[in-house]
């Protein structure tokens, strides 16, 4: 089981790395979205600093969501998803492996990139540790919740799209706590309360989401 999960993880990483530069794309996307907000608002750093938490988190959510869209779709289309479903291995473990690959390729780089974008929004250097840890935790949850949505949207016939839509609101708590943690970090207050909540959400997601993904994948493949 662990071997199979590692095989799935390794395969997804290999597929992503096959095209140099592709790993950078979510990063670049994250950067572009972050740049868009000031363009629609104002160039003044004082004002930008206030909206920085919202901007960073919405951008992270989008980058994560957009890249999740194809998480299972490609496998479903080329038939390898059926191969995975029928591998005789616990499906939840394989689903977790796929999500882990996604996080390594998207959530982690996004987190590491956030400080640079923070600077452009006038965020003080002292806030960076808080921002880094909140994003690291939050993107885990985003990847997992998004994976549930991606799995649900596979079974179009069964109204999967509508169900997939429902997962968007599920990311609201992550967004709220994440933005709150960032805000506290910028204000120089300790963000640890919000961080605990984010961590709790992540733990909850790691435990439950793979089961939901596995169930959704089975339904979607019928």
């Amino acid at each position, binding site marked *: 089981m662990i071997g*199979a999960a590692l095989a*799935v993880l390794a395969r997804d990483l290999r597929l992503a790395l096959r095209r140099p530069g592709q790993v950078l794309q979510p990063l670049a996307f994250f950067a572009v979205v972050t740049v868009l907000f000031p363009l629609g608002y104002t160039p003044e750093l004082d004002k930008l600093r206030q909206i920085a938490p919202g901007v960073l988190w919405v951008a992270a959510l989008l980058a994560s969501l957009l890249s999740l869209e194809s998480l299972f779709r490609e496998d479903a289309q080329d*038939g390898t998803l*059926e191969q995975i*479903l029928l*591998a*005789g291995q616990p499906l939840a473990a394989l689903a977790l492996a796929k999500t882990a690959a996604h996080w390594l390729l998207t959530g982690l780089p996004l987190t590491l990139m956030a400080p640079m974008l923070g600077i452009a929004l006038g965020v003080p250097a002292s806030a960076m540790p808080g921002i880094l840890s909140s994003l690291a935790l939050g993107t885990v949850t985003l990847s997992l919740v998004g994976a549930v949505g991606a799995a649900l949207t596979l079974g179009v016939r069964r109204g999967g799209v509508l169900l997939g839509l429902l997962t968007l609101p599920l990311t609201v708590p992550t967004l709220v706590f994440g933005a709150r943690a960032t805000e506290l970090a910028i204000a120089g207050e300790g963000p640890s309360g919000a961080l605990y909540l984010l961590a709790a959400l992540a733990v909850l997601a790691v435990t439950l989401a793979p089961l939901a993904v596995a169930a959704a994948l089975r339904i979607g493949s019928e």
Partner: protein
Amino acid sequence: MFAGLRFAVSAGLCLQVVGDNGAGKTTLLRTLAGLLEPDEGEVRWNGQRVETRSLEFQREFVYLGHQPPLKDDLTGRENLRFGLALRGTAPAGDAGRAIDAALAEVGATALGDRLVRSLSTGQRRRIALAALRLTAARIWLLDEPVTNLDAAGQAVVASMVASQLDAGGIVVAATHQDLGLAPARCPQLVLGRRA
């Protein structure tokens, strides 16, 4: 979809499912593979009723559908290696050696290091056949295994099926074309067409 359909296959035998377009061949195979849930009916294995979706039963069979399950952006060899790791069936001896042997058997040695993306339809099917060969599963569920294959490729399928049967395996194949096996070894199950 099917009513009153009942059949048994024993070790060393093949079952060729035939029937018009839309007769339900694919549906039957996918139900056996647990990809579809039957409204009624049961599957027995060694006389015991099995849950087709149980992991134990999944390890007994391998399903090859209309479309070869390969990743376009991996080479044939990488695809085969992934298949091995996924099912957790380490072949006797060296994995690389086993993969080479399987590729040679389907006549795709020269294709193994090319990205699947760049292969022709028939060449992809050959890689998928090599993957089939590498699994240790006893039961093969094959949907149209000879589609898009040239004469040599069809012969490969026939000999693979024969050797699987010789080894005490079971093959259930849905097909419009003949598999080229002796009828005694490969009785036909004819599905009637419904409207």
